[in-house]
């Protein structure tokens, strides 16, 4: 019988593999796509223990080019989601009051006031300034309107469960960005944090029943240990506690930890050039703040445009 020995198969395999390998190695722009040929990337296993001053891997994540405002034109149909979309837990209505006001504002009606609460991450207006600039550029004030206000309210040391509702003009949107002050808690059970957050959000809602609230999750945070950088293991647990609070009420949630890249991302952000996180492996630099503001802006705008599209597709006006 005509048997086909393995070495003949091997020859055929090599005949196929050689051109493919050559193609992967030689044609520009293909290397980065192939997982195993890519030696410059940092594998997650390595990131968990990045040497404190690794010269060789000092290459950061590709910073996305700031989304050009052209791509988010009013009513444009944008089908491509942002890097980290806002989560609604099945109920898009939670941001609807804000979107309605935003739509009215773009038609020259009403004012927009956004309160950005946060911990020391928000000090120096590190994140809010960029968010404000993007919103004001996207929705320019018309005639007698004032520009969109985005107020920066940093509370150093706060976990976001001791905030006193503001009795000024009713805000259109409250953004709450907390969590890093809980990271060092010596527990793995954060259900108390969920309950406290729910209470806090109810306090806001008691003053402004129709306010839209966006809860921004905790950011990744790391520490040095034996010449390596480790993310705190509590970070995802706190994120889960925040998700639980957002889901129960419900309010909108934006997963900052996931946006950053999950476990090990604080190290990666620190090693980026320019560094997106400061020496303490916790606080964002201005570059990091800008990155977060841009991503948050993209997520908000995408949700807003999805909302407009969905109303159009149901052949209703957005302002009904």
């Amino acid at each position, binding site marked *: *019988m005509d*048997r086909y020995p393995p070495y003949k198969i091997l020859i055929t395999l090599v005949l196929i593999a050689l051109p493919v390998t050559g193609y992967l190695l030689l044609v520009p722009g293909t290397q980065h796509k192939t997982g*195993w040929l890519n030696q410059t990337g940092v594998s997650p296993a390595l990131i968990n223990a990045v040497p404190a001053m690794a010269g060789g891997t000092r290459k950061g994540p590709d910073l996305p080019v700031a989304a050009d405002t052209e791509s988010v034109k009013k009513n444009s149909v944008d089908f491509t989601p942002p890097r980290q979309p806002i989560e609604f837990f099945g109920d898009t209505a939670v941001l609807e009051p804000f979107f309605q006001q935003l739509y009215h504002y773009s038609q020259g009606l009403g004012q927009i006031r956004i309160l950005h609460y946060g911990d020391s991450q928000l000090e120096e207006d590190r994140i809010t300034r960029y968010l404000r600039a993007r919103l004001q550029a996207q929705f320019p004030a018309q005639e007698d309107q004032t520009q969109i206000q985005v107020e920066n309210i940093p509370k150093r040391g706060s976990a976001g469960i001791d905030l006193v509702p503001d009795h000024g003009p009713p805000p259109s949107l409250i953004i709450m960005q907390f969590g890093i002050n809980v990271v060092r808690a010596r527990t793995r059970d954060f259900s108390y944090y969920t309950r406290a957050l729910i209470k806090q959000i109810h306090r806001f809602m008691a003053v402004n029943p129709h306010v839209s609230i966006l809860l921004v999750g905790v950011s990744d945070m790391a520490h040095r240990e034996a010449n390596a950088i480790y993310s705190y293991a509590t970070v995802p647990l706190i994120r889960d506690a925040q998700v639980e609070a957002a889901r129960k009420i419900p309010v909108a949630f934006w997963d900052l930890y996931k946006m950053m890249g999950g476990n090990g991302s604080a190290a990666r952000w620190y090693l980026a050039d320019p560094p997106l996180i400061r020496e303490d492996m916790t606080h964002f630099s201005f570059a990091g703040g800008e990155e977060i503001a841009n991503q948050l802006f993209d997520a908000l705008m995408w949700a807003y445009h999805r909302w407009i599209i969905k109303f159009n597709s149901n052949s209703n006006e957005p302002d009904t």
Partner: protein
Amino acid sequence: MSQILEQLRYAADQPLFFTRLFFWIFFAVVLAGYSFFYRKPPLRNAYLLIVSLYFYYKAGGLFFLILIFSTLVDYFIGIGIHSSRSQQKRKWLLALSITVNLGILFYFKYAYFIADILTNLVKEPMQVVNILALAWNHISGMHLDIHHIALPVGVSFFTFQTISYTVDVYRKKVAPVKSLADFGFYVSFFPQLVAGPIIRAASFVPQLYQPYRLIRREVWHAAFLILAGLIKKLLFADFLAVNLVDRVFENPSMYSGFENMMATYGYALQIYFDFSGYTDIAIGVALLLGFRLPVNFNSPYKATGMRDFWRRWHISLSSWLRDYLYIPLGGNRHGSFRTGIHILVTMLLGGLWHGASWQFVLWGAYHGVLLVIGRWLQAIPSWNAFVKKIPRGLKVFFIFHLVWLGWIIFRTATPGQMVSMLHELPGVFNPGLWVQWLKSYWMVALMMVTGFVLLWLPDSLKERIRGGFIGLPYWFKILIILSVLLLAKEIQTTDLQPFIYFKF
């Protein structure tokens, strides 16, 4: 050099996918060594066993100790069952084997699920502690994470395989494998180790003692299967997942009914192309080494009934469930009511096999109920007469949509997500978005249409294409394979996506 060595070591994030170039380099090296050993079955089997164990180490790291443990236990139990005369002892040995295998499966796969259920029952937060890692740390002085239980690669598949072996030995359907190396080879043969097909000792073990007999036609049949599998996985499944399915399932309420509808059809295509593509490659690779694995898919979306569907979808699992769960429960021997219960239990557990989640249980229940209803209806003569008059195409269309609805349960992570998706679907009848969607998603739409056309091509035509490929001149075939691979590389937009069934 150190970089090459680094590649050879276990890396959790880089298992040996069939879609990685590394796998094919690995396979080339395996073939080179195989050329020395393929003529002598004992040497050949030992060689492939070592290769397979390395393969598992590369994909699963330390977990390969569990594979070895499971292999040893079932090897000795198999011999024990065969040699013991007392029925009592045989029963106890069988029970021991099943307990050990299911114990491994439950410990690694369902610990969190059980902790969750307990938490809900006693209202006290339950923490999972990895006692195996704890013990290992004590013995070896290593520092493994004890707060996590990770799922060993392929554990769902090889535990089922060893259970089927001991049960078959107990039922005297197969003689126990005499050599430990041969048994280890049966358990860990690398093309099917990670995600099946689940092979039976009765059909596989005899192949261990047969001489190598691979003919030219079979080699090109294998090449065709591998090529088809790569096309299914890289061109269709990954493309649809990345560009449509994942983003909509992540956030269904952000999308209109039409987009949700397209994503669910996309997933029906994706899961079939993903898993059957994987299986095609596994069968092809095994064949190139001279071993024949069972067929796992037989055009499931051409099914004309739910029972028919399960005879065509993941055949090695559904026949396993039939032979080792449904029939031992009593099958259809205890009247129609008991039969219905048996079907339901089988399908519920079959659903749970896919993962520790209520969505999978619900999916199993859904299919179980459909099968039971199908059975009841078949008992009515006028119903059968009615079904006979329905054109085949209409039946296929109807059954496909029953299955499609099931995939929505299967893919959504939580009941809330599922409900919000089902809530959006009726919005499909507002055609406002269709044109705009098609304009920006024309590539995805094109892939989906092509996918469905390929699914529903007549079998005879598929056979002719396969035969045509095999009959082509050597260089022409190489050229076709090369152009398909480069095309797939060009279309690929992101990093390689893992096979869906790797996590089950």
